């Protein structure tokens, strides 16, 4: 207790092997106390397995898990100071809403009157005042979600784990619950670790995002860095939309794209210290691309492409096109700007300094 670790959770080179395949491989991560971290990745990449190693339901094949600076490898789930919000809520069907909320406190042998007080406060916090005596089967999806959240929050765990907590809700409710989750996180100051495969949700919710792919941690960074400075091709593609063009670094810092009539002069920072001859991919975000003859002067990268499709989605129009060699290209620009003709040839342009490189 003398020196409290600043990290609520620390993973040290954890792996989990099932038979011949690794669900999680060699993941190291430090989650600061009070942070909101999401684990993001496609289905089957090991997100739930990672979360369950923190809660104790999966024992790592190798590596170490620390909670509040103490290794918990020897601790059973019921001995760990974590609380989980399950995707299907897992509310106890034979208990009322209030009894569900009280469960963790009862197991921790809290005094009766304090339990009653904290249950009332939690009903208030999750906007369910007056619902305490309801059966959980009488709750709507959104309400059940709040009960599940409240049941885990009420014990004030060292880490709150959320496995796709909003996965079963419709879009509108999802947005609303995202905002509520964020408010609750800020108000309570607890450490949240959430799993999602929805990149937008990860970007809105969290301070830091761990992007996983095939059991490995690709990048653990702030949403902004993930977007502006993706570490790998996978991250560039998975977080936000990206146009990826294979390229090669030439002499004097010039980068030549394989398929584009395009060479770029990139700064050493953009090249990330990569030497001549390295194969790379150019990451060009769709919203940096302008379409049409009136390209801004600082858009020094320009290619001519045929426009295939124009899709309006409110404020933004998404324009897809292809280059003579077939490479596809996507641009997002303000719907206020004039749209090009479908089937016509148009200039797609973007500023070279907004281009990011990842290993090819």
């Amino acid at each position, binding site marked *: 207790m003398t020196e409290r670790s600043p990290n609520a959770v620390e993973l040290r080179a954890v792996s989990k092997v099932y038979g011949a395949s690794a669900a999680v491989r060699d993941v190291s991560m430090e989650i600061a106390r009070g942070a909101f971290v999401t684990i993001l990745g496609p289905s089957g990449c090991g997100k739930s397995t990672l979360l369950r190693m923190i*809660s104790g*339901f999966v024992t790592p094949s190798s590596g170490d898990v620390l909670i509040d600076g103490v290794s918990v490898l020897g601790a*059973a*789930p*019921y*001995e760990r100071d*974590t*609380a*989980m919000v*399950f995707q*299907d809520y*897992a*509310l*106890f*069907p*034979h208990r009322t809403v209030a009894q569900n909320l009280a*469960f*963790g406190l009862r*197991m*921790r042998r809290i005094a009766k009157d304090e339990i009653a007080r904290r249950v009332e406060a939690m009903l208030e916090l999750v906007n369910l005042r007056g619902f305490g005596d309801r*059966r*959980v*089967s009488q709750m709507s999806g959104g309400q059940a979600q709040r009960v599940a959240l409240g*049941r*885990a929050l009420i*014990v004030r765990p060292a880490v709150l784990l959320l496995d796709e907590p909003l996965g079963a809700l419709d879009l509108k409710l999802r947005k609303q619950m995202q905002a509520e989750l964020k408010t609750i996180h800020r108000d309570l100051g607890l450490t949240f670790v959430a799993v999602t495969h929805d990149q937008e949700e990860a970007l809105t919710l969290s301070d830091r995002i761990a992007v996983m792919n095939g059991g490995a941690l690709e990048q653990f960074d702030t949403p902004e860095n993930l977007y502006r400075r993706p570490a790998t091709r996978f991250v560039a593609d998975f977080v936000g939309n990206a146009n990826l063009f294979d390229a090669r670094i030439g002499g004097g810092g010039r980068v030549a794209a394989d398929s584009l009539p395009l060479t770029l002069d990139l700064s050493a920072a953009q090249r990330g210290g990569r030497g001549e001859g390295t194969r790379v991919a150019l990451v060009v975000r769709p919203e940096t691309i302008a379409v049409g003859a009136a390209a801004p002067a600082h858009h020094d990268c320009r290619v001519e492409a045929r426009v295939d499709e124009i899709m309006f989605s409110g404020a933004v129009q998404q324009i897809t096109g292809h280059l003579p060699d077939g490479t596809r290209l996507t641009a997002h620009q303000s719907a206020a700007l004039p749209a090009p003709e479908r089937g016509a040839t148009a200039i797609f342009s973007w500023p070279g300094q907004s281009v990011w490189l990842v290993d090819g």
Partner: protein
Amino acid sequence: MSAAHDIPRRRPLLRAALPAAGLLPLVLWQIVFFVVPVALIFGVSVWRTQSYRLIPAFTFDNYIAIFARPAIWRALLLSVETAAFVTVACAVLAFPVAYFIAKKAGRWRGLLLVAVIAPFWISIVMRVAAWRLLLGERGVINQVAMTLGLTDAPMSFLLYSPVSTAIGLIYAYLPLYVLPLYAAISNIHDNWIEAALDLNASPARTFFEVILPLSAPGLVVGAVFCFVFGLGEFVTPALLGGGKQLMFSQVIQDEFQRRLDWPSGAAMAVVLLVLVFAALALSMKWIRRASGETGL
């Protein structure tokens, strides 16, 4: 039912009544083989006998006589005790079996369920013969116990006693308890168990807080099977009970066949029936409460 295809759509009443027609065979069956015999039994129970002859009457003397004869009381008590003991023993034995099959057996589940039901396929006579080999004075258990020096003389209470009746009944009814329990436990989501553990409930508390209450429907249904069958059981006590301490059903049989006092036997049968219905009514209430709680 044969006319189902040409029911005009404009006759909702008939359409609503049609599915109920499917119940007809069951209703007829019940009337012919249950309602009529029970009515007859009840009718006979208020008659009198004189020199082994039945005389129609309307008297409750037979019922009053039941409560006046200690031997009958003892038999009824033994039946209730045995049924209760067998029920509790079956519950305790069936729970781990049902839990294992529902939660841990994986791909062996089907095979294990068949193994649980298998004793049903063996005739009672063969089962009893096997029990005799095991429990008799020169049976396997006594031989082993004496060889090991655990006892000097063979334990005679093992066979032809309420003990052997109880053992035989537990063995016979275990599948009846395992099956409904298995069904109830299968309905318990693993996530509920994990949620309890995650919220710092020890495995023991998880059992009492989550697993046991959610198994209640299966526990009640199994208990009803065991208790009701145990109460009225005739064959097993007749073959294994030895005849020194009679169970209620044996006394009834005695009244009908040996003493030829049908009204008296019929009155006892009615008492047994009332007990059974009381047990059923009680359990219906429990089941409704238990299932109301689980929302199943």
